């Protein structure tokens, strides 16, 4: 993946979040505090602004820009997680304009590990980790496939949506929804939806690169 694609991925993610802002707020209203869409939208809007204002020298620098921006503009649980995750992500990316697919997956691995460490959530806790953790497993299995394999990322985006949908039946054990206990059943976790949208953005980006 190169810097153009990387930035396109985040621009696309920003678009998807913006389109789904109200959906995300509504999901958060049901089991949280109705701000997840606003939080992510605010932060990603700033990422796009930062891209427009800064042309960084490398993928590492671009990723760091994303991490710093999310960290300082999203707020809430998702801000701390996405922010520290992307900062970790940036440390694994090379000071170069391009990275192999495997290097990208390594960085994503570091991202997810940072999230796990910070948030302590495991699969089944009804959080964004219900998307990120299985997605990482699937991606690691694909590590030998050529970058740009549209098939893999499109399938992954679809699966991510499914994992997110499946949070509906879970009792939340982490995050704000955990306070609701059994009452959280029947509602999809908003953070898992934004995580799934990120994989959607990845798929859209790869598809664009290929075509």
């Amino acid at each position, binding site marked *: 993946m190169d810097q153009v694609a990387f930035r396109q991925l985040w621009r696309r993610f920003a678009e998807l979040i913006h389109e789904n802002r*109200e959906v995300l*707020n509504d999901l958060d*209203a*049901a*089991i*949280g*505090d*109705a*701000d997840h*869409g*606003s*939080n992510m939208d*605010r932060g990603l809007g700033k990422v796009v602004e930062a891209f427009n204002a800064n042309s960084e020298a490398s993928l590492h620098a671009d990723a760091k820009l994303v991490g710093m921006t999310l*960290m*300082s*503009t*999203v*707020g*809430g*649980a*998702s*801000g*701390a*997680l996405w*922010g*520290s995750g992307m900062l970790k992500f940036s440390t694994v990316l090379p000071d170069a304009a391009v990275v192999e697919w495997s290097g990208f997956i390594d960085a994503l691995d570091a991202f997810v590990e940072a999230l796990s460490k*910070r*948030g302590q959530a495991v699969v089944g806790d009804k959080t964004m980790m219900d998307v990120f953790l299985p997605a990482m497993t699937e991606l690691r299995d694909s590590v030998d496939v050529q970058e740009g394999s549209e098939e893999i990322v499109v399938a992954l985006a679809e699966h991510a949506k499914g994992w997110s949908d499946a949070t509906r039946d879970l009792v939340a*054990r*982490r*995050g*704000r929804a*955990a*306070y*609701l*206990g059994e*009452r959280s059943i029947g509602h999809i976790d908003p953070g898992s939806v934004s995580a799934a949208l990120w994989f959607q953005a990845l798929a859209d980006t790869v598809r664009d690169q290929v075509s």
Partner: protein
Amino acid sequence: MKKIIDAVETIVDQALDGMVVAYPEYLQRVEGTLVLARSKPKETGKVGLVSGGGSGHEPAHGGYVGYGMLDAAVAGEVFTSPTPDQVYAGIKAADRGAGVLLVVKNYTGDVMNFDIARELADADGIATEVVLVNDDVAVQDSLYTTGRRGIAGTVFVHKIAGAAAEEGADLSSVKVIADTVVANLASMGCALTSCTVPANGKPTFELGANEMEMGIGIHGEPGIERVPMMSASELTASLYHRLVAELSLGDGERIAAMVNSMGATPAIELAIMSGHLANLTKSSKLSLEKVLMGEFMTSLEMAGASLTLLRLDQQRSTLLNAACDTPALKVVKH
């Protein structure tokens, strides 16, 4: 959504400026941040206190900045924990060379953002400690989940830890005192109406004409149970007994209480609850030494109230009654 605002995006920034307009003798804004700090910082060599959280809880948290309470308050967007860079700016503003105690309500977002800020402070050589407030007994405490939330009882932590810091206690002592406040603190709240998060534009939940939501948090989120409306007497008793049981309060013990409005519930209703509270404590032979009644930790324009009980010992009682002078809480020596 009917609110006296200009634009959703500028609410917090404008409100912080407005706080300085109203309380210039107490507050200044740390430039370029969402931090309110004392306009007259305390002496060097004393422990600093920083608290904060999402906006929408006014007078929390900026209202508690001043002599005998906080040194700095960090604001996030409405109902959104502040970001680590902002918290770190608060830590720097509060630091007088003796380290800083962070008062953090136990919400995932707050905990994580304050933790990251501590890492930044660490790197800069500023010693920090955290007191995690989790007074909301509506939520089951558990190691395997997020645990209990922090709500209105946080104000007692500000007051008592703030008084200890003002007296010159060192960082670890202030933390111990703050921790024992939390260990003896229990709160629970209810909502009669939802509030509307400005960025969302509609009520977070809907309640029927005869329904109330018990065990709400302070972010306008739904509570743990929906029940039919109760009378003031039933409501106060139900909250009270729950808190007394949680704290295992027994005959002759000393307590302080807070009767807190979530925003729209007027003082006249709080006063009715306070009357019941006094009778309830009499019946259970508790010594009610202090009642804080009013708006202390709100959820925008939500109607509802919360009750907090704090077990007192001599130290906590003395610190609770120590002079303090902040926009939202003043203890004047008579």
